[in-house]
C-alpha cells in the first residue's frame, strides 16, 4: 500500500513534503500535489512534513479520504514532477488556519 496526498492539500500546496522525498515521486497541478504510487517507496518521510496533515499511509487513511488513493494513482504520472519546494498557493495560510492547523 502506498502513501497518498488527500483533500487538505487542495488550495494549500505547501510542498514542504517534496524536500524530503528520496525518490522525487510528487507531481503537481494548479490545485495540489499527487504521489506516483509506482515510484513512491513508502518511506513516510513526507508525512510529518505536511503543515496541514494531508498525507497518509495507505494502511492508515481515513475512510472519507479513500477516494484519493485512485486519484493520486491516476493523476500523478501525467503531471510534472515537483522536485523543489514551491511557493504555497495564494490563500494557503488562511486555509491552513481554517483547517485548524
Amino acid at each position, binding site marked *: 500500500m502506498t502513501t497518498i496526498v488527500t483533500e487538505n492539500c487542495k488550495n494549500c500546496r505547501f510542498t514542504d513534503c517534496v*524536500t*524530503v522525498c*528520496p525518490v*522525487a515521486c510528487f507531481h503537481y497541478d494548479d490545485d495540489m500535489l499527487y504521489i506516483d504510487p509506482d515510484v513512491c517507496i513508502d*518511506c*513516510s518521510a513526507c*508525512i*510529518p512534513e505536511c503543515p496541514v496533515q494531508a498525507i497518509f499511509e495507505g494502511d*492508515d487513511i481515513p475512510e472519507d479520504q479513500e477516494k484519493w488513493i485512485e486519484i493520486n494513482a491516476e493523476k500523478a504520472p501525467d503531471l510534472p514532477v515537483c522536485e523543489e519546494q514551491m511557493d504555497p498557493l495564494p490563500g494557503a495560510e488562511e486555509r491552513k488556519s481554517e483547517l485548524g492547523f
Partner: protein
Amino acid sequence: MSTLGTEQNPLLVAIVGSGPSGFYAAEALIKSDITVKVDVLERLPSPFGLVRSGVAPDHQKLKQAIKLYEKIAASPDFNLIANVTVGKDVTVEDLSESHHAVIFTCGAESDRKLGVPGEDLKGSHTATEFVGWYNGHPDYRDREFDLSHDVAIIIGQGNVAADVSRILSKTVDELKHTDIAQHALDTLAESKIKEIHVIGRRGPAQAKLTPKELREFGELADCSPIVLEQDMILNPESEKELEEKSNIASKKIYDLFYEFSKRDIDSSKSKKCFFSFLMGPKELVGNSRLEKVVLEKNGLSGEPFKQSARGTGETIELESGILFRSIGYRGVPIEGVPFHESWGTIPNDKGRVTDNDNNVVSQFYTAGWIKRGPSGIIGTNRACSVETVGCLLQDLPNLDDGSKKLGAAAIYTILDSNNIRHVNYAEWKKIDAKEIERGEPKGKPREKYTYIDEMLSATD
C-alpha cells in the same frame, strides 16, 4: 583562467561516502546550472551506504531508493571511486589539493555506549553489528551471535531497535525471499529465542519509531506483540503531548501500543515481543558471558515535550543471554577534519565545516548524519544535502584559488602508485548483476557478496 563552474574550468568536487546523503549531494551539484565533475569516494567496493547495509532486508521497497541513485550515477559528471578509504588510501589533503571542494557524507558508523558495568560482556552487542551482519556488510561478516537463549533484550525504541526486534521475531519463511545474507538466514533458522524485550527509557508516548514500523509487529506470522495495560497509563504531561495536534505521529504510536495492550495473547504463536517502558539498563551481569540484565525503573520529569527519564532506584532483573543496544549512533573522526567529540559529528554551519572556534574551514562541507547527527530517514538527507550544496554554490567565487586542480586523475595517480585496487561504477554494476543472478535460484532479489575479495573477483 576562466570562471569556475564553466565548461573550460569545471567545479571539481570530491564527496566522501556513497550513502544517501552523498548521492543527494551529487544530484544537487549535477542538477545545478554550473559545470561540475563529482568524484564520490567509497570505502567498500559497493555503493549506497545504509540503503544497502542498514535498511532491513524485509523492507525491499525502501531499498528502491537505489533506482534514483542509479540515475544520478548514470550522469557523465558522476564518477565513483570505490574500495578506497579516505584517511588511509588517500588523505584529506590529497582531496583538497585535487578538488575545489570536499563534502564529507560518511555517516555515523559507531554506536553510543550505554555506560553501565558489564557492557562489554560476551553476548552484549551493538545493533550496528547485528544489522551489518544480517545485511551482509563485510565489516560484520564474521561476527557471531549466539541465539541459543530464550530471551533477547533490545535497549532502545527507535526504528533500528524495531528492525533488530522484528528480524528476531520473524520466521525463516518471512525472511527467505528477501536479500538477507545467507549466513544470517542460516543462523536465524536455528534461533531458540522465544521472548524479545524491547526496552524504552521513556513512556509509550515518547517512543521514537515510525507508526509504520510498529504496525508490522501486529502482523507477524509467529510472534505476538505484548504491551502491559498498566504501562498505557500516562502522566498528565504525556497526555498533553498527545493532545497536541502536530504530534500526530506519537498519537498513532500510542494508539498502536494501546491496541497491542488490549489483544489476547495468541497461543498459536511461539514467540512474544514485549515492549516495556520507563526502564533503563543499570548493569549487565554474568561470569564469562551475559546471564542477566538489571533494569532500573524510570520516572519522567519536566514540561510536556521536554520530559526526561530518571532512575527511581527500583530495579528488576531479567535473565537473558543476548542483548543489543540501539540508543543512537555517532560519527568517527577523519584525520584532518574537525570533529565534535561529544556530539560525534563534524561541526558545521548549514553544511560549511567549522573549526572549534566556529570559523569556516574553506573547501570543506558536510551533509547527512555526520553533519546533523543520526536522526531522520533516507529522505531527510535529501533536504540536508541540498542545503549544503546551496552553501557550496554560494561560496563558488572563493573556491578557485587559481591553482590547477587535476580532480580524479590526481587521485588515480596516488592510488595506482600505491597499488590500491579501486572499483569504478561499471565494475560495481558487474558485482550487482552477479549478486542478482546468485539470488535468482533462491527466489531472493539478490544474494550479496559478503567478503571484499569476493566482490573484487566478481568484477572480472
